[in-house]
């Protein structure tokens, strides 16, 4: 690849080829980790087998995650000139039917069809298009534009979709300073958590004089409940690579690393393949597009330490040391990897860069709000009807995301809170659902954007238990270097354990707050600095629940076991089936068959196993 003209020529050829390729029917299976976990591999094999046994002349391909986790495994069928129809919850047994009916006879299996991408005017009847689905209507997909549409293992599909165009433009038509100015004007902010302006970060690294600079992509996605980085790397790895090339050009780095979690084997595999293809095509290597700019990129596998998501810890890990953070300054832009100026951005940030250059600063900043431009990807999970990966313009309200896109709480349950930002974030109560999603609004209510995990909780979730869950996580992942984080989170966890087991004391809540504020203000890095957030935010909005645990020895959501009065059996309701006798781990239940049983209150350990097993709901605490 020598210059822009050559790329455009190649794209035209590829698009033409794709058009011709569509002369054959295509069957495409969604093969992200989610899809595979739901059985996509079996579906894929069944397709291959069916195609072979019927000797069909069709293209069988794979794609990444389109975000509808709820409907996995997904299978698309596209007939020449026809719309691309997506089937959801496809089982192996459905494959012959879909092939016989749709591929061979052109009649869509309507009861399995979920959505379609119409081909121009041509669309299937009785199947909604993606734009018409509630799940997609309010989304705006920039970073995820190709995810679930192209084959991530084929660079040609990325190029045909306009890939590497922004990279050519930046390297051949713009100076590094112009690229930085464009990113600054567009207002792009870091998508990994804190929301630091990306253009400013690049400028600081550019301005530090040095003959050697590094650029790093932080793909150490460790927040429980977040999987956008994995989906991006699995579904569209070239977009991230392209963003990194542009970033490296802007700051003047000739070497880069992608630091990926080892728990993401498929993402690593696809990235390796993508890097190799990019090298072969000359997007990476020496003198790219004849611009005189050279850039090499390699993968570093993480070894399982959450704290390595912190930039100084991440660099220590690449250097082969224990991944522990160090004080800043000096900032990585001054002294980073091996003491050289280094720029670190998150996967989603880099994935936004090609789109930013393509749309231009004005186009990009017209999306979102004034202070938070563009879009944000969220992983929507928990007690919600449509779990999945969604990308929305900044400034959309939480209510729109949870109800309009997510479909609300399934089974008519009542929403209690939305947890945003993982272990660094906070729980936002139902009454604040109209809050617009942007960096400042979230911070103002004690949460943070974080990497974009969004877990919906209903009435059956105990907020004290949730706070304890996150604190246990950060406590476990604390690297131990600074005292506030190492000791402070431990003390907070002890208090929460005490409260959850019914031994909370007067003054515990004040103590939690005091400890929380100290840890937040004095920790070395943001792992400790944000660790108290889940506790502080639940204390702020759900204090009554904490008080019920402490004063009434009662868990309002019935989650925390081992609290309150012993269990007892209602003799009127008991049918004497004996299930509770077998369920009790301490033999506290006794009784003759078909006669009402009873529980020895002295022996009962309050575990609730009997109540959970009772078919007629005759067992309750203190009944």
């Amino acid at each position, binding site marked *: 690849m020598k210059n822009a003209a050559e790329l455009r020529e190649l794209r035209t050829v590829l698009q033409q080829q794709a058009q011709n390729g569509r002369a054959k029917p295509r069957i495409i299976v969604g093969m992200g*980790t*989610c899809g*595979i*976990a*739901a059985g996509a591999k079996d579906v894929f094999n069944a397709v291959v087998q069916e195609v072979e046994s019927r000797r069909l002349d069709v293209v069988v391909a794979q794609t990444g995650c389109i975000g509808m*986790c*709820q409907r*996995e495994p997904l299978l698309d069928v596209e007939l020449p000139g026809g719309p691309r129809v997506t089937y959801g919850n496809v089982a192996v047994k459905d494959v012959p039917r879909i092939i016989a009916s749709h591929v061979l006879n052109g009649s869509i299996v309507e009861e399995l069809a979920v959505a379609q991408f119409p081909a121009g005017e041509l669309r299937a009847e009785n199947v909604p298009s993606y734009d018409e689905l509630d799940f997609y209507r309010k989304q705006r997909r920039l970073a995820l534009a190709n995810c679930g549409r192209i084959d991530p293992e084929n660079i040609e599909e990325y190029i045909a979709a306009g890939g590497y165009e922004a990279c050519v433009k930046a390297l051949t038509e713009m100076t590094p300073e112009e690229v930085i100015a464009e990113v600054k004007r567009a207002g792009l902010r870091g998508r990994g958590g804190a929301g630091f302006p990306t253009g400013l970060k690049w400028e600081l690294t550019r301005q530090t004089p040095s003959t050697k600079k590094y650029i790093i992509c932080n793909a150490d*996605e*460790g*927040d*429980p*409940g*977040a*999987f956008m980085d*994995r989906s991006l790397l699995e579904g569209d790895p070239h977009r991230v690579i392209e963003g990194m090339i542009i970033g490296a050009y802007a700051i003047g780095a000739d070497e880069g690393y992608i630091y990926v979690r*080892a*728990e*993401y*084997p498929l993402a690593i595999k696809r990235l390796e393949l993508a890097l190799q293809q990019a090298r072969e095509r000359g997007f990476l290597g020496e003198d790219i597009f004849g611009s005189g700019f050279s850039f090499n990129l390699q993968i*570093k*596998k*993480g*070894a*399982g*330490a*959450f704290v390595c998501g912190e930039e100084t810890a991440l660099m220590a*890990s*690449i*250097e*082969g*040391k*224990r*991944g*522990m953070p160090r004080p800043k300054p000096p900032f990585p832009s001054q002294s980073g990897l091996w003491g050289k100026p280094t720029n670190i951005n998150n996967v989603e940030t880099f994935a936004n860069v090609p789109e930013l250059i393509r749309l231009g600063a004005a186009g990009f900043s017209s999306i979102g709000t004034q202070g938070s431009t563009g879009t944000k990807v969220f*992983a*929507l*999970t*928990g*007690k919600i009807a449509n*779990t*999945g*990966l969604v990308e929305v313009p900044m400034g959309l309200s939480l209510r729109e995301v949870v109800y309009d896109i997510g479909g609300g709480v399934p089974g008519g349950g009542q929403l209690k809170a939305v*947890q945003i930002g*993982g272990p660094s974030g906070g729980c936002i109560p139902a009454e604040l659902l109209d809050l617009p999603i942007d960096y400042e609004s979230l911070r103002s209510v004690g949460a943070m954007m974080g990497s974009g*995990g969004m*877990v919906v*909780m209903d009435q059956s*979730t105990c907020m004290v238990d*949730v706070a304890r*869950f*996150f604190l246990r*996580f950060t406590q476990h*992942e604390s*690297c131990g270097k600074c005292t506030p984080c190492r000791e402070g989170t431990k003390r907070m966890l002890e208090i929460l354990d005490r409260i959850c087991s019914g031994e909370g004391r007067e003054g515990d809540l004040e103590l939690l707050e005091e400890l929380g504020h100290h840890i937040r203000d004095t920790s070395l890095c943001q792992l400790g600095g944000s660790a108290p957030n889940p506790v502080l935010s639940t204390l702020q909005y759900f204090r009554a629940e904490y008080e019920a645990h402490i004063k009434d020895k009662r868990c309002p959501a019935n989650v925390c076991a081992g609290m309150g009065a012993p269990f007892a059996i209602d003799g009127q309701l008991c049918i004497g089936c004996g299930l509770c006798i077998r369920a009790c781990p301490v033999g506290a239940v006794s009784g003759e068959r078909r006669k009402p049983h009873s529980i020895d209150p002295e022996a009962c350990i309050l575990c609730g196993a009997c109540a959970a097993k009772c078919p007629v709901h005759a067992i309750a605490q203190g009944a």
Partner: protein
Amino acid sequence: MIYLRSLGWRRVKTVEGVESMACMCGQDRENLQKYLQPLHQILSRYAGEERYLVPILQEAQEAYGYLPREVLREVARKLNISFSKVYGVATFYAQFHLQPRGRHVIKVCTGTACHVRGGGEVLKAFQKELGITPGQTTADLEFTLETVACIGACGLAPVIMVDEDTHGRVSPESVKGILDSYRKGTETEVAAG
């Protein structure tokens, strides 16, 4: 393990109660060299610099199943860094294990989404079925049970991983079937010698 036993090595309990490898035959030196051969092959692919410590340990663990003390010592010697530094890195990262592990490693996700959707019950079912707690390995060295903070397939919670396969929407009832599917697939272990 068969591989190690065939060379005259077996697991012993040291004073601290930590299992380690000790040679039970007379030909210490020769056996040690043979034992370290896979490691030397790995080391030959890297320049002897500290920056390669993590990838070397990752590959060594893949070859040995865990990181025996002798391997850590040899890595320290070849990279010309102190044993304590290697030990420090090996114990810092959750991925590294200093004790033998089962042939199949089960990771039960205890992340937020799985927690909310009943991942705890799934973990209990594995504990009951295997008779071990997280962090332990079955006596036949078949399964190791672990918990993981998040696999990143939250949309399919509760999720587990067996080796590199991800299983979604797992219920306590489906646990036995999953285990059986791995029990059946017994590939023969080659004893080197």
